């Protein structure tokens, strides 16, 4: 049976995999043309998920299918070998065949499909052209830079005409500069791919830049799924909040006032009554070197500055207030306020900058 080929299908994963006392349970769907990023810490089972979809390991419960075409369903004793799935993989360590030139690496998929050598090479060259790699065609993989190898790996995966595409930390092995370049190109090429794409990564930037949907995986389960904007503005666990750099607190809301767990009150417009999560952007805070006089800000906390770290064109402050708070300020503000570790600081924020939303976990 031929792989499903160019038919556009969606990917459905509702599966559990046990690996040495650790169980991964995932229920995700990826529509054609959608890029889903599975974001999680190392050891969260991301690679296990990817290997299960590719058919490199079997799942223990549930099923994996491409639209109606079942790839793995232990309950019905169905397991399709990786070569029969039509699921392409771009591996973190590119895994180019060292004994084949770039063009023959890319022609490998078509050759495996039974395309004659000359025609397979022609197809490979079309893909190399499309990805701007024409001049690398005759190179041996060991003579490629990391970024080039990763681009060739993408060309190779696409040339095999997969129904779905999986990417395993595609940028993790690259240096910072190359990463930025490849990231842009990858985004473009993924946008052109008509099938579903699933990307696993531990890097929130990679997830947010490349994906249309993000599923955050923690301790083997998906804790949050949504658009990058939703994930980054309304994180639901402290892990996600930390990933996207948000301040996240739990509390109980009543009539627009949130009583935070552990003491303190914030005013949040539109806070639904009941258990809520409160998210505040680090840049929403204003820092003062003395207790502010009466102002319109509805949050006023005081604490001690613990540390400063530059991120991009800002400086991120860690403040020990009644609760830990991350605050972003400009380097100019740091200089003007003479901020240094140990300095007492006062923080204010407006109620409109506070997002409060139901805490579904409670």
């Amino acid at each position: 049976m031929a792989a499903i080929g160019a038919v556009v299908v969606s990917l459905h994963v509702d599966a559990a995999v046990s690996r040495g006392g650790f169980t991964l349970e995932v229920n995700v769907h990826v529509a054609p043309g959608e890029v889903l990023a599975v974001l999680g810490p190392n050891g969260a089972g991301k690679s296990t998920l990817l290997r299960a979809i590719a058919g490199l390991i079997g799942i223990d419960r549930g099923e994996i299918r491409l639209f109606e075409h079942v790839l793995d369903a232990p309950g019905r004793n169905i397991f399709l070998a990786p070569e029969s799935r039509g699921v392409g993989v771009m591996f973190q360590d590119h895994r180019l065949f060292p004994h084949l030139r770039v063009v023959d690496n890319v022609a490998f998929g078509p050759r495996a499909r039974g395309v004659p050598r000359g025609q397979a090479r022609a197809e490979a060259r079309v893909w190399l052209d499309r990805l701007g790699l024409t001049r690398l065609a005759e190179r041996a993989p060991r003579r490629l830079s990391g970024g080039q190898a990763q681009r060739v790996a993408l060309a190779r995966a696409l040339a095999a005409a997969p129904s779905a595409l999986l990417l395993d930390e595609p940028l993790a092995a690259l240096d910072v500069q190359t990463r930025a370049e490849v990231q842009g190109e990858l985004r473009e090429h993924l946008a052109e791919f008509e099938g579903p794409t699933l990307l696993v990564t531990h890097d929130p930037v990679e997830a947010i830049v490349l994906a249309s949907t993000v599923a955050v995986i923690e301790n083997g389960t998906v804790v949050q799924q949504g658009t990058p904007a939703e994930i980054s503005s309304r994180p639901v666990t402290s892990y996600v909040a930390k990933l996207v750099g948000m301040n996240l607190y739990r509390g109980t809301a009543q009539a627009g006032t949130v009583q935070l767990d552990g003491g303190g009150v914030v005013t949040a417009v539109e806070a639904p009554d009941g258990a809520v999560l409160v998210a505040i952007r680090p840049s929403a805070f204003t820092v003062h070197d003395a207790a502010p006089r009466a102002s319109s800000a509805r949050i006023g906390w005081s604490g001690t500055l613990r540390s400063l770290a530059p991120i991009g064109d800002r400086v991120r402050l860690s403040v020990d207030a009644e609760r830990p708070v991350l605050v972003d300020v400009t380097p100019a503000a740091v200089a003007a306020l003479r901020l240094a570790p140990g300095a007492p600081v006062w923080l204010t924020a407006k109620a409109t900058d506070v997002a409060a939303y139901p805490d579904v976990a409670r």
Partner: protein
Amino acid sequence: MSRRPRGDERGGTPPLLVPPAAVGAALLVVPALALVVRAPWSRLGPIYGEYRFWDALRISIETSLEVTALSLLFGTPLAWILARAHFPGKAVLRAAVTLPLVLPPVVGGIALFYALGQHGIVGQYLGWQIPFTQFGIVLAGTFVSMPFLVVTVEGAFRSADRGLEEAAATLGASRWRVFAHVTVPSIAPSLAAGSVLCWARAIGEYGATSIFGGNIAGVTLTMPVLVARVFQVSGDPEGATALSLPLMAVAIVVLVALRDKWLRSAPSS
């Protein structure tokens, strides 16, 4: 004061290694050197004419190459099975496969008789004669030489990069295609090394060949068997020495050439 390292030379040789290495080299080189020194250089022509040396050399080269081909053909799949397959009795099979390495070759020759001779446990059902034929000495050579290839290649299959095989499978390659187009090329240096070892063992083979193949001039009389006969039967040590020189020359040329070409590249793959 340390010597400045040259090129990519890292970590010099610990001085303690040099004396034992020198002794080891001497043990291997001095006897060969003695053979060259004591060879009857002035009588080579007449000796080579007297003992039908060209026939024997031709048979040795032909049969050793056939042994290498047979070993590659059957030994490579066997090495794969030993490296990757799971089945009961695998440990026993692995031990049996390496048995010819420790068995005295003469015993190997006798064993082959019991197996493939006219009254052998398999030979009695075969309609044709195997002992005392050229096919017989190829089988005898394969028996003693193939383990070298199997052991070398099995290790390579075991440590081959599974990641490449996985990548090939996700590109739609069948198991056979993965084996033939990814795994085998990736262990090419080990296949070459195993083949060279196998060939080297085959061209020097005496024991099993002499028992199972006999010494029919022009058919089964190989160089090692000829040398032994000249030494023992004709009582001509000078002749034996003279005859061993071309064998040595062929072996050294081949080993030096192949070592430079393939064996060195093995660790980097």
